[in-house]
């Protein structure tokens, strides 16, 4: 391949023959050694994705394999979008991703700044905060499920520290939230949509913030905010001290130095962290599966659980494949630009 591009004079016959480099293992060998990896990636990633797509548009909805295309095309996708459960899943993915990114990335930045200013204890705190990242989502889910069980967990701590006695003094009722068992959806926009689009009747889920998702966000933040913090600590380490010093000499207060100098300089880190944690959040499955499952009225259901249940419990393969393809599209929307930009940088 390379000799075609090499600046050989455009003469014919003999001269190109002599200029052609001899056949060399050195150029073939790297590709040959890589080929098993590349072939397995081609099959196990790309061919399998195409196969999943073909299943999603097929009639295969029982244990009996059936690859024939279901007509009209994309009928399974339409069915799925009409399901109240899948509509709730899309709502939950959006709400969870937004809340989780705010808590984990914002919290990570805050923690990094706090640790930067905490002197000798900072290494100890860094290690404590990063610890959950080493654990399985299942372990996290099991632990937080117990903590947010309204009968056993944190509600008892509220009683123990006298919070509810304090509330009673002010005439307020006891604070005993249902946490992951609470089916309430707050800040609903259904009436608004009904007013704006009176003809649209396809909306079958309550669009708003399901309260049961909040404990899940707290657990996910517990596990993954350490990642954001570590990213920011690494980024803070690359900012030269002179830059901050210059800002201070110009009369900036410490908070102004952070707001106008440090945080803007960390923007590339913020972008990377948002993308990495955002794609984790879009494909989240294990944590919610172990912690709250589908939740009351699908309040904590997500596409990852939907795929698992439709495919492996209900054996509706085309429906499960369709939902997984939607997940893939979401993740690609975040990851493909990221990969393309890092490729361009090289």
């Amino acid at each position, binding site marked *: 391949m390379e000799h075609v591009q090499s600046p050989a004079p455009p003469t014919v016959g003999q001269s190109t023959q002599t200029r052609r480099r001899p056949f060399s293992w050195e150029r073939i*060998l790297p590709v040959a050694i890589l080929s098993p990896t590349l072939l397995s990636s081609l099959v196990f*990633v790309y061919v399998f994705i195409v196969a999943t797509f073909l299943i999603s548009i097929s009639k295969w909805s029982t244990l009996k394999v059936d690859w024939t295309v279901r007509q009209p095309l994309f009928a399974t996708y339409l069915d799925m979008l009409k399901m109240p459960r899948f509509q709730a899943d899309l709502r939950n993915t959006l709400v969870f991703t937004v809340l989780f990114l705010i808590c984990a990335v914002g919290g990570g930045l805050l923690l990094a700044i706090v640790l930067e200013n905490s002197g000798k204890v900072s290494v100890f705190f860094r290690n404590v905060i990063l610890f959950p990242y080493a654990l399985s989502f299942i372990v996290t889910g099991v632990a937080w499920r117990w903590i947010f069980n309204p009968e056993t967990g944190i509600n008892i701590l509220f009683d123990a520290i006298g919070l509810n006695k304090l509330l009673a003094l002010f005439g307020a009722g006891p604070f005993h939230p249902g946490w992951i068992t609470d089916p309430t959806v707050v800040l609903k926009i259904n009436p608004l949509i009904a007013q704006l689009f009176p003809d649209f009747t396809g909306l079958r889920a309550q669009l708003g913030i399901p309260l049961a998702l909040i404990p899940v966000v707290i657990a996910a933040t517990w596990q993954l905010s350490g990642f954001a913090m570590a990213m920011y600590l690494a980024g803070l380490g690359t900012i030269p001290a002179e830059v901050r010093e210059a800002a201070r000499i110009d009369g900036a207060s410490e908070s102004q130095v952070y707001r106008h100098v440090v945080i803007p300089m960390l923007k590339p880190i913020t972008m990377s962290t948002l993308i990495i944690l955002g794609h984790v959040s879009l494909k989240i499955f294990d944590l919610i599966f172990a912690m709250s499952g589908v939740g009351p009225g699908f309040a904590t259901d997500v596409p990852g659980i939907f795929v698992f249940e439709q495919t492996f419990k209900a054996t509706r393969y085309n429906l499960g494949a369709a939902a997984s393809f939607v997940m893939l599209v979401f993740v690609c929307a975040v990851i493909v630009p990221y990969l393309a930009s890092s490729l361009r940088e090289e």
Partner: protein
Amino acid sequence: MTNKAKSVSRRSLLPQSAFQWFVVAMLLLALFYYLMPVYVMVVTGLKDARNVSMATMWRPPTSMTGGGFIEAWSRLRPNMANSMIMAIPATIISAVIGAINGYLFSKWKFKGSDVIFTLLLFGFFIPYQSILIPLIRFLQMIGWYGTVPGLVLVHVIYGLPVTSLIFRNYFAGIPTEIIEAARVDGAGVMQTFWRVILPLSPPAFVVVCIFQFTNIWNDFLFGVTVVPSPKYQPVTVALNNLSGSFSVDWNVVMAGAVVAALPTALIYIFLGRYFIRGMLAGSVKG
């Protein structure tokens, strides 16, 4: 220099400014938030079943009898073994192949190699739900469905993108002159790898092995879908089953969570430095 000296002399045990008070408050809050679940897991696990009452859940155990740990261990031990015989070979194989790949992608670039590498790396980010049905049919075809070797194969294949990435970034830091010198001495592609690159690689191997072992140990999706028989399932699946069954007491579940978390927790505690490097290597471009 003078600035530094000033801040040292100013330092005392009590916070001086509002900002320092804020730092201290945040640290205390963080300590509570990040350690509370660990405390709950350990303390509940150490209690006896009859002592796990709602009213005393936040208190430490009154007597040391091993609590739920004895039952949790006896229930999870076979699955801990499954996880071990799954995670160790899968880690080693994906690390070795990843090292060779990373070496070739960083030091033997060919036309389109960066594009091909990016296409390979894509496999690290996909939601694995979107390849599960074909994957399981493939494993059934070759007769590895429901087996630990099947899980090893899956973890090796889907681990290669990230192991190749970490090694590629690491090797990019090795001067190309070293490779050139080896070539002048007549060493071929693989000879250069064995004689020159490999001796420089132990730190990268430690990082990759910790990263991979943690990922594979903590996996749930492949474990629950590729292996239907509880006998061969990894410990994450067994722990989830344990917590989902109503016949098991909470002290056993919590003790089980501690047991299942122990290998990766110990790695983190003793090799945390390498752990953090691996975690960042998967995202920061080298």
